[in-house]
């Protein structure tokens, strides 16, 4: 084959010089024959012949090359297969040597597990009071192989599962067939639902009423504080509070005492005038005494005149008459003077009495004024203290009102439990109604076709859990103890 290849390859490569020589010959021949047409045709024929020779040689070379490649591939493949087989053999021997000990250990471990499993099965069998069906009896005392023991255990396991399934179905049938339970549920569930709903409504009404009462209480307290404040400090509509009233009263009473003081001063002026009047009466007494003295002198003069008239005789008769009349006048004047003196003394006595009484009244008025001032001061002081006490009470009332309002706000927070309780009870009511409807549907199906559909408990519980709105409900649903958080106050802004 290789010889043929060499031949073809040589031939192939030989065609190129031949082709080149032919072409050069043709070209030389053509040039030398001055491009005659016959020569050109012959040259072309030669070129075509050499070209054909070249193509044939190349195709034969390719065929030979393919054959050589195929033979080489087959030979190498055989060599590789032999080598791979040898390596695989070596590797399997090594692996089998290395793993034999591990396999042995695993075998022992599996044997031990199978023994334990067998013991467990035996214990389960004894717990089932020997009711485990299909338990094979050992045919002989010879130890079984692992495969045989596993097959045996698998069979026992399958039979046991079937046995337990049948037991569970029996139990379900027994449970479902508790006489009158479905009828009882159908009758008792709406009652429970209505009772819960009634309790929910009752709670809601009571809480609403309670909230209203607290609100009213708070408003009344506010009104009381406002009234107290307006009493103390006044408001926009009234004229003022107690403080202003006290100030006005103090001013009014001060003006009264001022008026009284002025009146006292006027009385003292009057007294001084009366005292001055007593000075005039002294002068009047003196004047009356002077009148009496003049009358006495006139009387004496008239007496002397009468004596001289008597001495004159008849001529003095007329003069004696005049002297008598003068003497009468002097006596009358003396009488008048005495009367004036008596009157002046009476006036003096009256003035003195008036002065005494006026002084007494002035003293009394002064004492009364002092007493009134003291009483007014005392009363105002009492009022001021009372107002201060009222102010303190108002302040206390205000602070207490603030504290009570805070307490009421806390009560409002606590009262919101009703909404949470209401939602929980509404969900329970809804589920009770759903159960009642489900039982009714089951009963109808049983009446129609005699078949009885079971309740998918897991699905039921899942649907129930989907209706919860609070984490506490989910926790209770999953059997956890739910912490009741009454002051969580979570605000999330978006």
């Amino acid at each position, binding site marked *: 084959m290789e010889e043929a290849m060499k031949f073809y390859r040589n031939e192939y490569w030989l065609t190129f010089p031949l082709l080149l020589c032919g072409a050069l010959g043709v070209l030389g021949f053509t040039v030398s024959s001055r491009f005659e047409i016959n020569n050109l045709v012959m040259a072309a024929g030669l070129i075509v012949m050499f070209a054909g020779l070249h193509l044939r040689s190349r195709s034969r070379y390719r065929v030979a090359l393919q054959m050589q490649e195929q033979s080489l591939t087959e030979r190498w493949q055989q060599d590789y297969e032999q080598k791979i087989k040898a390596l695989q053999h070596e590797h399997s021997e090594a692996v089998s040597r290395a793993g034999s000990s591990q396999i042995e250990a695993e075998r022992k471990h599996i044997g031990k597990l199978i023994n334990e499993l067998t013991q467990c099965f035996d214990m389960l069998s004894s717990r089932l009071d020997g009711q485990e069906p299909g338990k094979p009896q050992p045919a002989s005392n010879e130890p079984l192989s692992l495969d045989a023991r596993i097959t045996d255990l698998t069979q026992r396991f399958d039979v046991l599962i079937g046995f337990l399934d049948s037991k569970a179905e029996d139990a379900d049938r027994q449970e479902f067939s508790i006489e009158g339970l479905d009828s009882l549920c159908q009758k008792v569930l709406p009652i429970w639902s209505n009772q819960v709903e009634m309790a929910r409504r009752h709670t809601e009404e009571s809480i609403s009423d309670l909230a209203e009462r607290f609100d009213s209480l*708070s408003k009344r307290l506010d009104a009381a504080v406002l009234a107290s404040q307006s009493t103390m400090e006044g408001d926009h509509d009234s004229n003022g509070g107690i403080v202003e009233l006290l100030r006005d009263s103090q001013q009014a009473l001060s003006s009264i005492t001022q008026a009284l003081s002025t009146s006292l001063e006027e009385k003292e002026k009057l007294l001084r005038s009366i005292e001055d009047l007593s000075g005039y009466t002294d002068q009047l007494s003196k004047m009356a005494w002077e009148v009496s003295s003049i009358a006495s002198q006139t009387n004496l003069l008239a007496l002397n005149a009468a004596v001289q008239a008597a001495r004159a005789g008849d001529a003095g008769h007329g003069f004696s008459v005049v002297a008598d009349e003068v003497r009468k006048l002097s006596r009358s004047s003396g009488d008048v003077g005495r009367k004036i003196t008596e009157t002046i003394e009476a006036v003096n006595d009256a003035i003195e009495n008036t002065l005494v009484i006026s002084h007494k009244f002035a003293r009394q008025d002064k004492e009364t004024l002092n007493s009134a001032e003291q009483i007014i001061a005392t009363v105002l002081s009492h009022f001021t203290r009372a107002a201060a006490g009222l102010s303190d009470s108002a302040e206390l009332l205000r602070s207490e009102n603030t504290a009570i309002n805070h307490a009421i706000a806390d009560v409002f927070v606590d009262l919101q439990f009703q909404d949470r309780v209401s*939602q929980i009870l509404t969900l329970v009511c809804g589920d009770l109604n759903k159960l009642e409807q489900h039982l009714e549907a089951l009963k109808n199906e049983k009446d129609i076709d005699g078949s009885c559909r079971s309740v998918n408990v897991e699905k039921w519980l899942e649907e129930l859990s989907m209706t919860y709105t609070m984490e506490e409900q989910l926790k209770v649903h999953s059997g956890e103890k739910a912490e009741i958080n009454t002051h969580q106050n*979570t*605000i999330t802004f978006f």
Partner: protein
Amino acid sequence: MAKTILFVEDSASVRQVMNSTLTREGYQVILASDGQDAMGKLDGSKIHLIISDVNMPNMDGISFVKQVKQLPAYKFTPIIMLTTENQAEKMNEGKAAGVKAWIVKPFQPPQLLAAISQLIQA
């Protein structure tokens, strides 16, 4: 002039509590017992804030919010959800519907009033 707040809640006691709390603070309060009732009270007059529960009969809070956001007069009215719901899924639903704040009951009046004041002035 007093700001007006629409409060939607099916629980009469919570309505009472909120009415008292908000009135005391000087707000004018319009009360509604569920979403449907509240929709009937949106007559175009100015409402500065809406507070709504989530779980209510006839129309729940989220549906109510979606309908309110379709009314041109109340499209930009801030809405607070006041509810016992504290699950993230529901909160995200509310956020997507256009709710501005989510308050879980029981609420503390001072914090609620602070949130109201913040949203009304915003």
